[in-house]
């Protein structure tokens, strides 16, 4: 049984009468004195969802291999008071001093409110936008996965015969809109006449709706399909079953339909988390605002599937080399949204690292869909 050292916060003062119950946790602290670091991971869904949460859990598994590090994990924590209490519980009962709450909705208000109370604890949040007015012991990190989706789009652009590609999306939020736009822009780098149909399911995990959405896309003539939902397995299977090509997301889904799988945009959290933890072990501080793309190894591509043509492989590799140099520009003017309004004037360009992209609220020309 693992003994859990109590943190320095003396929350025990009020519980003298319950001493019997706390005997279990009454070992002296000194977790950090022994050079041992306890790292907590919190997931919003099941950690084996073959998608978003699993990609983080695999990152946590990589951290477990680092000597001197203890990892504690908790799954299915909703974005309510439950996450505050989970973080506190990890701090109080397990002595965690580095936390990775991995769902976007954990950031504001929950992490931002709790961080000032536990100044010795580092809160590293995935996807948020840390600004200098936020607590110093909070950091946010994310990956430029939209560039990987852009590469998906290039493969899709070569594979489509109907010149229509499809996207099953959860909600019209910036991270999703960015991916939809990049998917189409990648395809349009092959053929500017391609359009992308998007269907929003309204939630992150709705297998029946995702299957229905995929069928609707196939009915509308889309012949390459990708998705941004928590677990894309159903979309991939349904689309491949209808004869469409698929591009993966979050993780490598090629095993579901190897002959239909073009490529996929995958997270590579193992590297990111290992870096963060090693920095902490050495006594260093993680930057408050961390971003990285293909170049930094935050994201990676699934190996190209057999269905890709030679032309597709060539363009894919060429663009990938450019992206690996860093600061690749997909969003540059003149660019219009799908309502005909100019969103980026001529001469203006947003490289992948531009923070402005993280508040995207439009779908580019050629995307059939609406942001609300």
């Amino acid at each position, binding site marked *: 049984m693992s003994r859990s050292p109590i943190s320095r916060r003396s929350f025990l003062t009020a519980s003298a009468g319950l001493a019997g119950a706390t005997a279990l946790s009454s070992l002296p602290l000194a977790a950090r004195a022994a050079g041992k670091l306890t790292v907590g991971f919190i997931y919003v869904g099941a950690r084996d969802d073959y998608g978003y949460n699993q990609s983080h859990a695999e990152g946590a598994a990589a951290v477990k291999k680092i000597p001197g590090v203890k990892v504690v994990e908790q799954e299915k924590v909703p974005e309510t008071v439950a996450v505050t209490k989970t973080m506190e519980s990890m701090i109080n009962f397990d002595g965690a001093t580095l936390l990775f709450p991995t769902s976007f909705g954990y950031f504001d208000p929950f992490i931002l409110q709790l961080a000032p109370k536990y100044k010795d604890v580092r809160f590293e949040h995935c996807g948020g936008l840390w600004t200098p007015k936020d607590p110093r012991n909070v950091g946010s990190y994310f990956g430029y996965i939209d560039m990987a989706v852009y590469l998906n789009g290039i493969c899709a652009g070569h594979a489509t015969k109907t010149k229509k590609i499809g996207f099953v999306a959860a909600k019209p939020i910036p991270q999703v809109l960015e991916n939809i736009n990049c998917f189409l822009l990648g395809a349009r780098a092959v053929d500017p006449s391609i359009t992308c149909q998007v*269907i929003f399911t309204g939630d992150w995990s709705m297998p*029946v709706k995702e299957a229905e959405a995929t069928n609707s896309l196939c009915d509308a003539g889309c012949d390459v399909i990708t998705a941004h939902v928590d677990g894309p397995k159903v979309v991939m299977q*349904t689309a491949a079953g209808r004869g*469409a090509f698929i591009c993966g997301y979050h993780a490598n889904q090629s095993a579901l339909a190897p002959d239909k799988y073009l490529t996929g945009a995958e997270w590579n959290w193992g590297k990111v988390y290992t870096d963060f933890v090693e920095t902490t072990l050495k006594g260093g501080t993680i930057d408050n605002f961390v971003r990285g793309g293909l170049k930094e190894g935050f994201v990676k591509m699934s190996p190209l599937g057999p269905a890709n043509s030679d032309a597709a492989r060539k363009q894919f590799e060429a663009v990938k080399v450019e992206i690996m140099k860093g600061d690749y520009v997909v969003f540059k003017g003149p660019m219009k949204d799908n309502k005909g309004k100019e969103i980026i004037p001529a001469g203006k360009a947003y490289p992948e690292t531009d923070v402005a992209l993280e508040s995207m609220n439009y779908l580019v020309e050629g995307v059939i869909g609406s942001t609300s």
Partner: protein
Amino acid sequence: MNTSDIGLWGVPLAILGGAVRVSTPFLYVSLGEVLTERSGRINLGLEGTLVFGAMAAYAVAFHSGSAWAGVAAAALCGAGFGLLHGLICSLPRVNDIAIGIALMLLGTGLAFFYGTPYVQPVAPHLPAIPFGNWSNVPQVQAALRVNVLFIAGIALALLMAWALRATRIGLMLRVVGDSTDAARAMGLRPNRIRALATAAGGAFAGVGGAYLSLFYPGSWSEGISSGQGLMAVALVIFARWSPINCFWAALLFGGAGALGPALQSVGITQGYYLFYAAPYVLTLGVLIATSSPTQATAGAPGELSITK
């Protein structure tokens, strides 16, 4: 892929296809619940049975390589949950609604507990009959790929309607459901009949779960049901305890559910949350239109606590 642009025709086609694809779990769960409620009990726990059935079917199909073995396992597990409900509710003063809710928790809890290793692997699917091969439009072909369980469900609805009306077993069930005292006077044993009816109802719900994980959407995950079992139980009241009406209710519900994605795919993209609510709004509308205060409980079994 042979594709043709069918434009706005996609919407009615999607509704048809959606009705066929999505309705089956609703059909099985509501048929199962008709059986249970006709005997005078209500089992609100079929949501849990559905989810556990989906998991068990997927796991057994994955290990055995046979989708039908999965369906059988789901039916068996469902019968087990049903029997548990039936036996517990045979005890005096035990509330069947509350037990149902607790068993819903048990079914989903156990399914999640044992289901984690099966999220990623791929299990064999149930076969479908391609009724649409006369057409050369791929969308029509896809919409008319009908699963065997759907056809079996229709047959089951017809069989149940006939059996309830014209067989001895059907009569026994109805008598037990309408009046415990009358049933006792006829020498029937109400608790035993109700337990068996609940077990059979559970088995149907298990099969509904097997359809979810082994055909459409055809994968096991914790979000697989999103409340379909609970909704199907409610549809029984909507269908006024008639198996044939259950079929129509399930079709209506499935078809209306396809409206949201279909409208987005033809470019009607604003307000999709409201389109997704279409099945609920439609059902409520029909319910209000067809109800009347004087015959609120028309068709309801007399012993049913929920319509008392």
